[in-house]
């Protein structure tokens, strides 16, 4: 069973410290949700785990099954079993979705173990139809000209094709209408197993109506300030964040402010 362990993580962007000591453990079989208003460091956490070039880890550790993630290149992190569904996926002209996915799968399998074309096509067809995607999308250029909803669905398609140990979903629900949201949730629920851990980053409780998390964490000022079960998300939906701020004596929850 996979374990992603984050300890005392400090992260800066262009010299400014955004994360100020995050501790979190995500295990296979668990779904965690990180909630919080905008500007509290949620997306920074996901980018730092994946190794985005702009984010600098200044202190703390990230390990996956005991291996030091921070010493790995981005592609090594992915091959070790991490996946990040991005808030703003890149558009890559001239590279078809299908070619890209096959390269990504083969990079994991390694030379000599490449997936057969038939097997790949069968799997792709199956996952695309599960996500109610138009078959044409396989042959379109990667994310180019995709609508916001199509891009998010395409991220979930990649998740299902690549079958990582631990997935981080960065605001996968933003900009989605309710039908698209249900399909995205269906994809994530399909992945649920003791071999798959998931960290969902969102500022809406809405998605959690369709995916029940095991743990809910609230992030403010670059730290996790409160953790609980699914009932915490429901209370946030009903009452907002003010009660937490009051409880913890926080005036401004965004990064750069101190309690």
């Amino acid at each position, binding site marked *: 069973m996979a374990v992603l362990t984050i300890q005392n993580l400090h992260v800066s962007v262009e010299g400014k410290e955004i994360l100020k000591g995050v501790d979190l453990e995500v295990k296979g079989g668990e779904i965690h949700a990180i909630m919080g208003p905008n500007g509290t460091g949620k997306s920074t956490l996901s980018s730092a785990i994946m190794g985005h070039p702009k984010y600098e880890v200044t202190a703390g550790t990230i390990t996956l099954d005991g291996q030091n993630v921070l010493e790995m290149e981005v592609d090594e992190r992915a091959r070790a079993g991490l996946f990040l569904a991005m808030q703003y996926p*890149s558009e890559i002209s001239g590279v078809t979705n299908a070619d890209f996915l096959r390269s990504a799968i083969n990079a994991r399998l390694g030379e000599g173990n490449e997936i057969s074309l038939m097997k790949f096509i069968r799997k792709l067809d199956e996952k695309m139809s599960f996500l109610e995607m138009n078959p044409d999308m396989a042959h379109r250029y990667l994310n180019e000209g995709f609508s916001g909803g199509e891009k998010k669905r395409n991220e979930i398609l990649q998740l299902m094709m690549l079958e990582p140990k631990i997935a981080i979903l960065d605001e996968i629900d933003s900009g989605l209408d309710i039908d698209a949201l249900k399909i995205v949730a269906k994809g994530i629920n399909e992945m649920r197993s003791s071999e798959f851990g998931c960290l969902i980053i969102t500022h809406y409780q809405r998605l959690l109506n369709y995916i029940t998390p095991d743990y809910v964490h609230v992030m403010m000022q670059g730290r996790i300030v409160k953790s609980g079960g699914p009932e915490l998300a429901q209370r946030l939906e009903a009452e907002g964040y003010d009660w937490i701020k009051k409880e913890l004596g926080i005036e401004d929850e965004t990064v750069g402010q101190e309690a």
Partner: protein
Amino acid sequence: MATETKIPFDETYIRTFSSERGEPDWLTERRLEALGKAEQLPLPKPDKTKIDKWNFTDFGRHVVDSAPYANLDDLPEAVKALIEAGEGTTNLYVQRNHTPAYVSLSDELKEKGVIFTDIFTAAREHGDLLKKYFMTDAVKPDEHRLAALHAALLNGGVFVYVPKNVEIETPLQAVYIQDEDDIGLFNHVIVVAEDNSRVVFVENYLSASDEGKAVVNIVAEVFANANARVFFAAVDHLAKGVTTYVNRRGVAGRDGRIEWALGLMNDGNTVSENITRLIGDGSFGDTKTVVVSRGEQVQNFTTSVVHYGKHTEGYILKHGVVRDSATSIFNGIGKIEHGASKSNAEQESRVLMLSEKARGDANPILLIDEDDVMAGHAASVGRVDPIQLYYLMSRGIPRNEAERLIIHGFLAPVVEAIPLEGVKKQLIEVIERKVQS
């Protein structure tokens, strides 16, 4: 004058050369007239590249007799690869150095009056047609020294003529192979599409070896007459020691369409000019060019669409990759003449630099002499986008492979447009070699 280059051929040589090939008098005269001008005329002046020290005249042999290929099995492997996967084998011209080495045209097209033959046969058998189009309109011998030299020393090429109302479904394919190291090749290509006709023409230039210092001077003239459509695809892949001047020009009549897909993959110093003149109202020109420069080569690519007719549309797309210490200049010119109202000139030039020492320059130019028009341009010179790399790598793709994908994607606009599978595959392989090695 001291700066002038001595042309290594005289009138007697040209007369003999022309008469040995049974050329009509007008062609001999046109050659001699051009020869007379060649020494005085200046070299062309491609913007931002100095070519006055380049070798356009010093080569070992103006003509070599190479053995023709008796049948398709005889063709070199490199040529076979270009044709085996495609359907062009029934309409194929292969030229070995200066020798028309294999020609075939389907009976069906012959019956329709289509001409597809080497330039010398065209001069002998279709002299009047050739006379009308050979360097009279699209390119003229007195433009500059290289055009004059071309007319004087013409020693290879192909003539394509598609009569009125004839639509050709399968592409016509030409392959020119340079397998002698010291030749001068003055190759002339003419594609004429008469009213309401349609043709796809695909050509490849390739070198059999990396040795030697050949000189290649290419002129292609394309005519899409009223309501005709010409699709012209080319992959140039001449070796490092070859100095190339290549000038591809198109002239579109009323509602005529000319589309270009050019994969310019030469490894030697190259000046490439591609101009499409939209003469007729409602005519259309689309130019897609991709380039990979490597080593120490210096290249200059000028692409221009000139609008004369009303309601004309011109599109220029150029994507270039520059690596090692290569230099590539990309000039894009959209020109709208006075009176060409309701026309649209768009261009996009993008250059990807893969090394610190590479030099690349994209110069978009719009010259507009009419008020009621649309025009736009986009240009960029940069490196592989780190965020795109991050995205691909975050799916487990190693950095090298991710870069490779991005570069191939960047060059896809022309690769995808190539209508013959064999040629498309060859272009992909050439790109692969040029980008990775």
